[in-house]
């Protein structure tokens, strides 16, 4: 006899709905299924109108993030067996919903780009000079920040972003930190303009839930507080060393 689990999904059609509604589907229960499998089953067998994003199914692409029972999760890495009594799936919190479980990620993508999450060099050294060398310790200083997959779960977990959408947000700052800590990078002075703007690191009140929600073990809360510390330190040292001038 097949077992079932009730999967309640938030639906929203911008052409007909003023606000979202909830629809419950009975999905066969399989202990080895993840939440995304249940959603795929709904799409294939129960309701072809359901919209959602997914791609790799293995926790790398970062596109299947949704709120499961009110908490942001990668649905491909969250087992159905943790929700044997039924579950509610909603689009990632704090983002504008375009349709059903699909959210608008433009704001995040623009913010991500604004902190230049790539290696910035004042002068690229010629290929003949060989590769940029790094010690293991230098790599360790930023390694965990580089695991970010841009899934935006941290934004959905962040009440500050929920209250004030202008906030630069956890992942963007964590990735900025990743490059600021990279010994090959020389872009810190460009990034600090955005990072230390009022809508940047200072909006963060250190609730810390971004780090708890991250499925890849990144610690954005740490990145933000360290950036605050380094920024203030830089200003204090700069003011003490050269009170009347801009360094460089």
């Amino acid at each position, binding site marked *: 006899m097949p077992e079932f689990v009730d999967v309640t999904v938030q639906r929203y059609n911008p052409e007909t709905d003023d606000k979202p509604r909830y629809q419950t589907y009975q999905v066969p229960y399989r202990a080895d299924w993840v939440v995304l499998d249940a959603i795929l089953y709904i799409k294939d067998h129960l309701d072809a109108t359901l919209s959602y994003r997914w791609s790799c199914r293995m926790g790398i692409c970062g596109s299947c993030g949704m709120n499961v029972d009110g908490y942001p999760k990668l649905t491909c890495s969250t087992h159905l067996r943790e929700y044997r009594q039924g579950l509610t799936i909603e689009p990632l919190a704090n983002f504008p919903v375009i349709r059903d479980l699909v959210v608008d990620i433009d704001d995040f993508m623009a913010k991500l780009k604004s902190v230049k999450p790539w290696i910035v060099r004042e002068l690229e050294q010629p290929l003949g000079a060989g590769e940029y060398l790094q010690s293991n310790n230098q790599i360790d200083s930023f390694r965990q920040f580089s695991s970010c997959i841009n899934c935006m779960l941290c934004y959905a977990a962040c*009440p500050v972003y929920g209250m004030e959408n202008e906030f630069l947000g956890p992942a963007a700052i964590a990735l900025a930190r990743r490059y600021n800590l990279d010994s090959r990078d020389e872009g810190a002075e460009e990034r600090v303009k955005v990072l230390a703007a009022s809508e940047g690191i200072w909006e963060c009140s250190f609730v810390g839930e971004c780090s708890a929600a991250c499925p890849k073990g990144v610690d954005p809360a740490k990145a933000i507080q360290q950036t605050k510390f380094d920024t203030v330190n830089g200003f204090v040292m700069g003011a003490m060393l050269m009170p009347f001038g801009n360094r460089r």
Partner: protein
Amino acid sequence: MAAHEPWHSRADVKPAYGHSFWWFLFGNGGGIAAVFLPVVILVAGVLGPLGVKNWMEDSAHFAWTLGNPLVKLFLLVLCFLTFVHAAHRIRYMLFDLGLRGSVVALEWACYGAAILGTIAAAILLFTTP
């Protein structure tokens, strides 16, 4: 779509020096208050009334201790940093609780109160006894 240019793509985006100033005091205040305030409350607020003699034992000892300018300075710095630390946290708490109309007004109110409190503390400490 250029209807609304995001703040981070503006050409004049720059670090908020005011925020970094208050955060500097907030961080230091949090640390100083964490290390120095517990023992002050423990001795003068709990052990004292329970019968342990201490510097606030009676007005003679209280006045004698406060007569030392270094004690006055220590207490003033403790008050100043704790007040500013508190103002910073209260500013964020009030924002969390829904006071989001004008962050500028909120900051003036919170940091202003901390500065006024510090001035009051300075006047009291340095005119007593």
